[in-house]
């Protein structure tokens, strides 16, 4: 269905090609999962399938890409519309119209289908993706998952034989991601559409992938997921666990891994003691309530943050996490209660005093950046925080020391940074005032495993340096490996507060993968488990030997 023959892509003004000599075949009806680190050329590969590369980006494509027999060198993307559908990362950015039905109809309108055919297609698609109830709703008001389902539907109304999705869930919360992937799996199983999907969070899609493509710039490897996973640079926790414990075939789901792990569970391995979650109190919130209109987003929350502790703030969408963070920082609306950080009442303090007390990294960190180079941003941050020149840049370098990516050039435009780098820059800007409390709102969106790991260790280092860190997140794997303490929020109230292992592991919704594999024992981290197994193997105990 899709065939790449010796494909190399070079963008204009780029020193090196983005893809080199790629050979790839995707058969009809397969689900092909494309993965690789951020910036590895995944997007280039996917866009080459639809013909957007090089037609929309400029550049040179050597070799041949054919989709259903059509050569993208001769057929423009718009003429491929009824052959390949494409869904991007941010659904809202790709919407042309503003209601669900109009959006679904846009493709068929361009293809000049007759109104009766179009009507039927739109209705079918509404049903197929469970959007019928939303048909007249404005797209802006839908949840992320619903928006992405509309985007998929809008690609399907032209009846393509191939659907290409570029990280369709990376900007969604888990509920939304679940929703989209369920819809996708239905398409795969019921319609037999050839699906090519790029995805960071492999664990979700691995189960129904027939083919796995690992893109790493020049090298593109493709094959059966079980084989390719063995040494893929990107791996979800179960796969990593399986690889490090030598399980064959590599487990792709919690269920697979649980079968392999049966002897481990019987071996009576002891998970590490949860770290202490108290220390000198640095921030105290008392009776904090936030009201948006008639809705009480945060309802009388009492919370203390301790120096040296990283805390995860988890809860559904709309449980009041963001509102609480903003209220703690002091800039956000607050209808009741006090927040005192290091003796400063952040609700009353002026912005610069707040900044010195609490650093907050908002959900869209790019909002904070407005200058033309990284250097300027850093200098501006030093000036804002009355810090010595070079402070911000030093913090930034420290943050990125762990990351595998190249250091940031001072002259780079902040908008040209990768997600991870941009987050690091904003974090550095916010940390320049060396505040004792650091708040982050959904920092892991769009980050790959390596970037998340780098962020996690940077935050732990910050905590070790005496700061209190609070991370509002949906990403339980990140919370499990980074945070000592977890606070569960529901309907604006604190429902549970305690050590991460005790809180997350028994939870059916929030438990990380390792915990699910090893349940009922409270394991959070692959590293801990592997270390424990290694230690166990050194001491001769027949029960553990597989």
């Amino acid at each position: 269905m899709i065939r790449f023959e010796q494909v190399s892509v070079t963008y204009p003004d780029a020193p090196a090609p983005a893809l080199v000599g790629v050979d790839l075949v995707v058969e009809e009806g397969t689900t092909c999962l494309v993965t690789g680190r951020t910036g590895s050329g995944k997007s280039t590969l996917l866009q080459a399938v639809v013909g957007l590369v090089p037609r929309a980006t400029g550049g040179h494509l050597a070799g041949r890409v054919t989709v259903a027999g059509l050569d993208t060198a001769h057929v423009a993307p718009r003429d491929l519309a009824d052959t390949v559908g494409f869904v991007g990362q941010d659904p809202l950015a790709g919407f042309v119209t503003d209601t669900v039905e109009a959006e679904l109809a846009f493709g068929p309108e361009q293809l000049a289908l007759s109104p009766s055919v179009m009507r039927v297609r739109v209705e079918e698609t509404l049903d197929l993706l469970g959007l019928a109830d939303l048909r007249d709703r404005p797209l802006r008001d839908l949840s992320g998952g619903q928006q992405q389902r509309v985007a998929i539907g809008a690609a399907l109304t032209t009846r393509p034989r191939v659907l290409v999705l570029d990280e369709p869930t990376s900007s969604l919360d888990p509920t939304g991601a679940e929703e989209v992937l369920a819809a996708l799996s239905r398409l795969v199983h019921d319609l037999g559409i050839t699906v090519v999907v790029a995805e960071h969070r492999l664990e979700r899609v691995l189960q129904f992938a027939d083919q796995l493509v690992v893109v790493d710039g020049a090298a593109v490897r493709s094959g059966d997921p079980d084989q390719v996973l063995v040494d893929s640079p990107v791996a979800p926790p179960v796969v990593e666990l399986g690889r490090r414990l030598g399980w064959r075939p590599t487990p792709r789901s919690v269920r697979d891994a649980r079968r392999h792990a049966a002897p481990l569970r019987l071996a009576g391995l002891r998970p590490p003691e949860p770290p202490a979650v108290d220390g000198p109190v640095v921030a105290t919130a008392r009776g904090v309530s936030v009201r948006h209109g008639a809705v009480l987003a945060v309802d009388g929350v009492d919370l203390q943050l301790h120096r040296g502790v990283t805390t995860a703030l988890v809860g559904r969408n709309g449980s009041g996490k963001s509102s609480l963070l903003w209220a703690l920082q002091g800039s956000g609306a607050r209808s009741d209660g006090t927040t005192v950080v290091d003796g400063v009442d952040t609700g009353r303090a002026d912005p610069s005093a707040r900044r010195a007390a609490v650093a907050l990294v908002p959900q869209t960190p790019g909002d904070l950046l407005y200058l033309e180079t990284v250097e300027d941003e850093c200098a501006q941050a030093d000036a804002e925080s009355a810090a010595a020149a070079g402070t911000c840049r030093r913090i930034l370098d420290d943050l990125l020391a762990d990351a595998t990516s190249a250091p940031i050039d001072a002259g780079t435009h902040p908008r040209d940074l990768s997600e991870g780098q941009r987050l690091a820059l904003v974090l550095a800007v916010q940390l320049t005032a060396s505040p004792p409390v650091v708040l982050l709102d959904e920092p892991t969106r769009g980050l790959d495993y390596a970037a998340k790991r780098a962020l996690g260790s940077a935050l732990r280092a910050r905590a070790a340096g005496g700061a209190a860190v609070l991370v509002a997140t949906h990403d339980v794997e990140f919370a499990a490996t980074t945070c000592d303490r977890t606070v569960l929020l529901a309907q604006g109230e604190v429902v549970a507060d305690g050590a991460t292992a005790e809180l997350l592991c028994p939870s059916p919704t929030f438990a990380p993968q390792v915990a699910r594999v090893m349940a009922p024992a409270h394991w959070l981290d692959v590293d801990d488990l592997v270390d424990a197994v290694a230690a166990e193997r050194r001491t001769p105990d027949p029960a553990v030997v597989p």
Partner: protein
Amino acid sequence: MSRTAGAVVLGRRSALALGLVSLVGLAAFAWPLLLRVDPGGAGHVGDAPLVFVVVLPLLVAVVLAEFADGGIDTRALAVLAVLAGVGAALRPLGAGTAGIETVFFLLVIGGRAVGPGFGFLLGTTTLFASALVTGGVGPWLPFQMLAAGWVGLGAGLLPPARGRRELGILVVYGVVASYAYGLLMNLWFWPFAVGTGSELSYEAGAPLVDNLRRFAVYVVATSLGWDTGRAVTTTILLVLAGPAVLAVVRRAVRRASFGAPVTFEAPAAPPPLVPR
């Protein structure tokens, strides 16, 4: 596949159409000054302004269609829509508050950064979209669209310069455009606004100088404050945010790589069958 440089191609035909329509448009704006009454009394003279109200929307549509036919790149269209969206979102914020008019800043920047054809489209689309949103559709809309189109077009035609010199040119242009736009809109609506029989009123058939004088007094009395407000807002915005916003738009244009060469090269050898 090759592409001509530039986001919106101003071809010979679209330029000609734009020129002709602009000529008619100028006449439609300035009819009170141009109208020459035949003392013998040809009856058709009095209808001219009403006819313009009917004809101008069609003419604006013809020009826009000509532009579209010359080929608007999808990405140029998307950038156009986004910038016009910014304008439409900005406009209600200012409208009604002492002549604070934020759209001109955008038109000047957009025309300057992307080009004259794009500037014209930006002016017309922005005014049209914001009229739809705010419910400002009426006979005045085609006049506003055309005048705003000229503002964007003019910004695209300014001489090349960079840095402070460029900012200076833009500010001067912004001020001139603000007043010119106000004068044109006034001129057209003047006879309707004050009616007949006052000393500010338009008098059909009076000598040009006399009418110009009356018009000048009318402008000073009614709308000079607004036009000044517009000029001041535009200047302030240009000085404060001009260079930065110009850089942002230029960067977007660069990233959209209008006219970047697109080349394909077939594989040298016959395609080997690649096993999965």
